[in-house]
């Protein structure tokens, strides 16, 4: 238990961060900024895992390892997404979502 801070403090911060990420996902038009919003969402989820681990089950490390694996999956996802974005840019010189609406041309 951490002195002075309750579980609600952390959960409120991570909830707000999650929905800010969702809002960014909706209002952005550039593929890379959408990727940035996804990173925000993933980070808020990792905070949740760690907080539940620390406050409710401090005798095990499940949330800690989930967080570790989420960070690894996020790295893999970012690298593949950026490879796709660069390939799209090479083909049509643009990475706005409004322009990328045909799968084959």
């Amino acid at each position, binding site marked *: 238990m951490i002195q002075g801070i309750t579980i609600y403090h952390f959960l409120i911060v991570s909830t707000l961060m999650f929905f800010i990420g969702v809002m960014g996902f909706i209002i952005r038009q550039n593929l890379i*900024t959408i990727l940035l919003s996804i990173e925000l969402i993933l980070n808020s989820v990792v905070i949740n895992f760690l907080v539940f681990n620390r406050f409710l089950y401090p005798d095990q490390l499940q949330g800690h390892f989930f967080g570790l694996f989420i*960070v690894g999956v996020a790295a893999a996802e970012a690298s593949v997404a950026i490879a796709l974005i660069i390939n799209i840019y090479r083909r049509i010189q643009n990475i706005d979502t409004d322009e990328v609406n045909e799968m084959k041309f």
Partner: protein
Amino acid sequence: MTLNLLMFYLLSAVILGFSVMTITTGKMLRAAVYLLFVLVATAGLYFLLNYEFLAAVQLTLYAGGIVVLIIFSILLTSHISQRFERPSAWKLWIGAITLIGGSTTVLWVLLSSHFEKAATVTELPVDMHVIGEQLLGTGKNGYVLPFELISILLLAAMIVAIVIAKKEKNQN
């Protein structure tokens, strides 16, 4: 107010403020740098929770790896001084409604629920010895299977990234 709480408020203010700036700023490179600040402050929260190893992983892998990768791709795909046009009004409305509606729903459920810790648990010290034994353990509390899975996943991601981003040879 304890120093703990003060530090928590500082870190969460940095996280929320820079999150908002990440999704609203007009310049793309700035958005990436604001995301870097968010990730560093999140690592600070992990330190506050006494998970030093994960905080170090967050700093090196996220802040050092992914953000640099994103900045590279920004520089490859767009001009530094390029500004976004503002999002259309109906997109802003949908986003704002999602933000307000979703967060009030979740916060309402959150604040009306009660979290209870099991009374008799003893706190496990999270040091490198425990983490290493559990990460590579096969018995109870062993995580060697996801560990191996993620190594295969990373290999696959690396191959996919190379294959997708490779320049195509000129067909004659």
